[in-house]
């Protein structure tokens, strides 16, 4: 095995924002499949030892480095958007699922605090203002799509249906009517 391959593979896994397949790692390192696989094995072994807070994890889509579950609670507050409040997340959800949407409509649903949430989310570049004819509407940004892992709105809606299922939505609607 080549130490250089191992180093490139580690660097790639470290910097990648998503899982990497063996094929992709092959292309990045310019090495043979066999070398990539050996490198992955060596990395897995090294990180699995005590004293390491990170581990190599294999998913359907490929390999990624992640924090070992036992340390996640201690460090998860260091992730970039862990400081978003419930109100901000609510606004974000509205823009993501119902955008482009007018500010005033968000305020009607959430109340006037919406304006300060919108301001914060704009500063964090998770939503942006778009002109639509004569009114300004809010939309999600590429940053939101990148980080929250949501490519298209349709995909979002699909995900929603998958997770909730028709029945669940019906139930929620009913609760909403009752309240």
């Amino acid at each position: 095995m080549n130490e250089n391959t191992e180093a490139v593979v580690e660097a790639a896994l470290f910097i990648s924002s998503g899982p990497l397949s063996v094929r992709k790692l092959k292309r990045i390192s310019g090495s043979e499949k066999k070398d990539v696989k050996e490198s992955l094995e060596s990395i897995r072994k090294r990180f699995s030892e005590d004293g390491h807070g990170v581990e190599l994890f294999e998913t359907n889509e490929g390999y990624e480095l992640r924090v070992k579950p036992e340390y996640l609670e201690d460090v998860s507050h260091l992730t970039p958007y862990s400081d978003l409040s419930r109100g901000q997340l609510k606004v974000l959800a509205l823009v993501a699922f119902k955008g482009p949407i007018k500010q005033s409509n968000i305020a009607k649903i959430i109340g006037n605090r919406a304006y300060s949430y919108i301001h914060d989310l704009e500063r964090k570049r998770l939503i942006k203002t778009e002109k639509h004819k004569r009114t300004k509407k809010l939309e999600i940004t590429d940053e939101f799509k990148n980080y929250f892992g949501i490519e298209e709105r349709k995909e979002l809606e699909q995900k929603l249906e998958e997770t909730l299922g028709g029945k669940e939505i019906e139930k929620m609607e009913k609760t909403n009517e009752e309240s």
Partner: protein
Amino acid sequence: MKEQEILDFASTEPNWEETLDWIISEEGIDPWDIDLIELSGAFSEFVSKWQKFNFTVPARIVIIMAILLRIKVELLMWEEREESEPDEIDIEELDIDVSDIPQLEAPKKRKPVRKATADELIEAFRKAFETKERREKRKNRKERRVREAMPIDGQTEDIEERIENLYSRVDRILENMKEGRTTFSDLLPQWNRVEIIRNFSPLLSLNQEGRVIAEQEECFDDILVKMGDVCE
């Protein structure tokens, strides 16, 4: 605010920044925590007192007063909205079904950052100048609008002439009217910012002299204009 103090201060021909400073210190407003509603009230009071003995209040000061009043109205409306904000909302009217919006969670994942590249630096250099052009265009547009709205500065037409013109227009219109009153908007050749500013202080001065009576029944309503008791 005593009238004599206002007179003394006005005679120094202050610009609007000085005027704001002066009002803030006269009214004892905390400069680090300015209550805009209070400031706006004090500013209008100052302008109306100034107008009493000198109707040619500089246009910029009138504009600042207008801006402050607008801020005040917005703040008051905001407060009102906050107080009366309903918790229940008519969702149907919005055509948004909030029940199908799930609670979003921020993923607990890292954001691996990379260094910027030289190409990005070059692109940013180009963009910086684009930003500059955009900002300048915006600034020019703003300046043009302000210039258009302030015809009084640099205008050769005498304020006296404008007062007399307005008075003869009131006279001519009312001659043929039974009710004996007209409205400020009917007196203007066109209802736009320039004409409003050009004719508003002449109207105030005619009212002050008693040659016309100007009344406004409700805030933001049109101003009713009648002939005054003082005749030529």
